[in-house]
Each structure stands twice: as C-alpha cells, then as structure tokens.
C-alpha cells in the first residue's frame, strides 16, 4: 500500500471524495499548457514513471517559480526515499511513496543535507547570497 507524506508527515490516503480539479502531468508534458488553470485546481500531480527519470524536477520548479502555483504539488509514481530531498527543494510538498518504502527512512530523507548550494523553489536565495549577507 502506497503511503502519502505531506509536510513531512505521513497522512491517510486517499481521503474520501475530493473537491476540485486534479491535474496530472507526465514527464513529457509542458506545464505552460496548464498554467491558466492552476488557480482553480486542488492539486497537481507529477508522475515519475522511472526511478531515474528526472524531468519532473524541472516541471515542479517551473510550476512554482514561473507559474506561481501555490497549491499542493504531489510526486507520484516511482517515488523513493532517495528522491525526496531533491523533490522538496524543487517545490513538491506531497509525496506518494511507491510500495515497499520504509517510512522512517523516508521521513529521515528530508534531512539528508542541512544546506543546499543552489537557488531552489524551496529556498530561492542561493547559499552564496546568504553567505555574503
């Protein structure tokens, strides 16, 4: 049974019938195509069909940083412990773990690194600007 993590906590899934539209994007989809609908959706899901397919990371950043999406952004598919740190930095706030992932290990993944060098969706100011201030 896949487990949903939100705000770094395990939550029940799925909640009973949801209100609002859910958009699901595949790796090859262009987020620009759904930009206009974003203010009215209850959730955007980005699918990771393979462990090593990193296109969803770029899509997430575009949704957050370019199209200003503020709602739930959920990673679904082959979502493993080893992706979570990067996904959160790219703007995901919900993660539907694939089957068989160890929950404690998954929750610990958000703390794999205590700092990020780059500008990210979660921390738009890169480390070098924070070091300088």
């Amino acid at each position, binding site marked *: 049974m896949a487990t949903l993590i939100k705000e770094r906590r395990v939550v029940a899934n799925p909640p009973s019938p949801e209100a609002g539209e859910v958009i699901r994007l595949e790796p090859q989809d262009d987020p620009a195509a759904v930009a206009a609908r974003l203010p009215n959706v209850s959730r955007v899901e980005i699918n990771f069909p393979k462990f090593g397919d990193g296109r969803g*990371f*770029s899509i997430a950043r575009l949704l957050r940083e370019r199209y200003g999406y503020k709602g739930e952004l959920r990673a679904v598919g082959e979502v493993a412990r*080893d992706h979570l740190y990067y996904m959160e*930095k790219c703007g995901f706030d919900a993660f539907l773990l694939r089957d068989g992932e160890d929950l404690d290990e998954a929750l610990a993944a958000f703390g*794999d690194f*205590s*700092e990020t060098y780059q500008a990210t969706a979660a921390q738009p100011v890169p480390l*070098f*600007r924070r070091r300088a201030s």
Partner: protein
Amino acid sequence: MYLYDEIDQRMVDERVAQFRGQTRRFLEGKLSEDEFRALRLRNGLYIQRYAPMLRIAIPYGLLSSRQLRKLASIARKYDRDYGHFSTRQNLQLNWPKLEEVPDILAELATVEMHAIQTSGNCIRNITTDHFAGVAADEIVDSFVWCELIRQWSTFHPEFSYLPRKFKIAVNGAVHDRAAVAVHDIGLHAVKDENGEVGFKVLVGGGLGRTPIIGTEIRSFLPWRHLLTYLDAILRVYNRYGRRDNIHKARIKILVKERGAAKFREEVEAEWAHLKDGPATVIEQELSRIASRFTRPEYETLSNQKISQEGPFGAWAKRNVHSHKVPGYAAVTLSLKKTGVPPGDASSDQMNAIADLAERYSFGELRVSHEQNLILADVRQGDLAALWREARDLGLATPNIGLLTNIIACPGGDFCSLANAKSIPVAQALQERFDDLDYQHDIGELDLNISGCMNACGHHHVGHIGILGVDKSGEEWYQIEIGGNQGNTHGGGPGASLGKVLGPSFARAEVPDVVQKLIEIYLVKRDSEAERFIEVVHRIGIEPFKTAVYGNPDQRAARRREPALA
C-alpha cells in the same frame, strides 16, 4: 587549494552518511540492483570486471600533499597499493570492497575529499587547464570559476537525474589546455573590449561513440550570468534530452537533432526567465572563493638560464614549463614510464610525490588530463635537485608531449565495458619508441588509446588514436589519425576529430603500423618544426593509408582476393 568552510564540510559528511544508508539498504535487499546502481555511480562506485572500482573526485585536478598522502594510505589499506589517475583528473581504485566504500568515503571526508558525482547521470567533476593560476597566457584563474561551478553542480536538486552524464570544462587562458570543445559544455574565458570577463560557451561536444566538436552558442556571456545560463542549458537538456536510448541521451544528440540554432533559441528563451534572478553571481562570492584558496607565497626571484644539456636538459626541455612569476617553473612528473600502465602510481610513489610537493612546490600539485602530476610552483634554482629525486622515483621520464606520453584508459584488464586491452598496447608502443633521441626527433605527438568506443582514453583527439574493437570475440585495434584536443600551443590546428585509417589490426601489429605512420611523417614534414598533426592536416590521410595498406590499386586487389593479403 580551496579550503572548505563549515558548510562545505558538513555537506560532504552528510553525503557519507547518506551513502552508508544506501549501501546498507542494498545489502539488506531493500534497493534493487538497478536502483543502487543509479545511487552508487553518483558516488563513483562501479561494479567492474573483477571487483568494484571507486572513482575519487579531484575537483579540477587540484590536490594538496596531505590529500595525496590520504589517497596513498587508502590505496594501501583498502586496495592493492596503487591508484590510477584518469583523464578526468580523478583517481581510480580498482580493487575496493563494496561494503568498505562508506568507510573510504569517511576517510576522504577528513581531508576535504569525496567521490561525489564522479559517475552517474549527473554533472561530473569540472575539469580545467592544469596550468591554471601559473600560466603566462592566463585570462582568469579558472580554479575560482571551477569551484563556483562545483558548488552549483553539487547535489543540484533539479539536475540530479539527467538523461545521461554531463561534463563541463573551463579554460581560463588564451590557449585551450582543457579540451573545451569536446565537453557537454565548454567555457572559454574571454575579455570584452572594456576588459570585462565573460565566457565563450560551447555545447554539445564530446567523444564516446558519437564524437562531435562542440558548437559555440554564445560568444560572450558576462561572468555574472554564468550560473543562470548553465541552469538554462541544463533545464532544456533535462526536459528534452532523449531518455529512450542510452546511446542517444547525451546533450550532443539533442543539439544535433534540434540544430544548434534552434537549441540556442530554446536556451535563450529559458534564460530570459532566469537572467538577473537570485542565482546571478555576485562579486562577493568570487572574492570569498578566491580568498579561500591557499596561494603560494612567492619569493622575489629572477629568471635563470635553465641548462638544455645532457639528461637534465632533455628533461627540462619536455617536463619543465614556463611560469608567470619570474624565477619559478611548473614541472610535470611523468606517470608514463615504460613498463608502467599510463597514469598509475603506487602508494609509495604517492607518498614520495607528496614529499616532493611539500619541499619544492608549496605542498600542492595538480593532476593533468594527460594523466600526469604537475608541481606548479617550483623555484628554477631547485630544478636540478628536483630532477634527481624525481628520476630516482621513476617520475622523470622526459616524454611530456612526446609519443610515449600515452593517454590510455584501464581497458580490458580492468573495465567491464572494454572490448580490448589498452595497457599492453601502450606498453608495446613505449617499448618500441623507448629511444629518447628518436622520440625527440619525431617531436610532439599525442597518442591516445581507448579500450572501447566510450573513449575514456580520448582516442578521437589523439594525433594518433587507437581504439579497441571486438571482432567475433577477438581483440582488434582501429587506428585514427589527425585528431587534436585543442589549440594548446597557439598556432597549428584547433580541436579536431581523427579519421579512421582503414581496417583494424591485431594487437601485435600495432607498433609496426605506428612505426609506418611515423616514417611517412618524417619523410613528408617540411621541417623539424612541422608537427605530426600539422602534416596530417596539410596532406590528408591518403599518404598514411598508402604507407600502411598499400596504394589504392593494391588495396583494391586485396579486397578482391582477401586470401592473398
């Protein structure tokens, strides 16, 4: 050396803990082989023909004597007492145990080292000119830019699962000693008419099975835009690079399929959104990085006349290089002694080299992409003493730039990808051309050997390139001529790819074939100053073909009656 601050150190320590967990999960059966492969590779760990191989990062090839001693001790404790310096300026250990790799990484972290992103589908070690900071033709100190890019590329959240590996090279001098044209991104420092520093940006170069010379997509990128522009290129590649076929997944294929103009448009469109954003580089960061680099405290000296006589002179001519500070010189310690696999150094040698670095060169050294070690800051007055010590250690072969300074991958002796062995071919050639007077007469010649088309030995850019191929289970060798890694000298051809001479040869034939190529070169050159590569570019490969395979009529006859060949 760039000295870590607390944050840099913490990131490396955290990486060790992360990989220790991943290794444990794999050994417990919680990660599949495939998934662990993706994770271990980005920590430099391959599973090879006989044992794992660990590739340790030496960012932009710069190393302290303390770090080299640590590498020597790791090679002794966890491996077989030697390491292999690679063409990406890294160090490879060929026999570590998988379950001990987390401990090796922990030891590396104590000397500000790691194996981060030395393999895998992510941004790899940034490489540069091994004379950075000391070359007379310097435009910028490329180490500072390399460190800036190293930090930007380390655990980049968006670009950790790219379609394929991604290699960036930076050249900070007038002449290109970083082979920028054969990298996924090549950055060549330039100054505009106002003296402002920027970069010429090349994309889509690379070797491997589809060798391509990179295309310039920007003639001048002002320095402050460097990281946002890199983000834009990587984002276009991450989104649109092919993931359906591993052999078509490098950025060079995307650039080729899109066309350079269209690719450039897409990058520029993406960049328009990122430009002047928070990732724009600031002056303070450049000075912060620059100030964390240790700098030699040079004495005020004047240039001396360096003897060109006798064995010392032969060494000085080939292995001693000019320096921007009067009274100093850079020295190449050759890891290309006949009988030793190119790029290999024993733990004893590494310790001895660390000693030499401390006594003669401010405790630092560099790894060159030609797989040698460089002491960059030697007093000219110390050269004779250094030469004697290096000679006693087997590190003073006066062959830099000459035929026996062979670049070679580990090949079929170690690598599970290889079609053929590289090391025995290198050794046979070194033995054949061991006569130094003959080598000096032949003059500058790059001879590169790869054991398979992945081209770790950079055979496409050797003046003579040798590629191991598999023909019905047997090892054969294809020979190319006319490749060139870049305009390293000023004058002469720029970066170019070699052309295949013709049908391949058995291993035992290779030295004879190379001998024939050399002989025809010696006949055709217009003077001793005209190098092999220049002759090939002037007269084409036909005369060389004839020397090796006979004239066109003879070749045709042989094709008709192969039994008579």
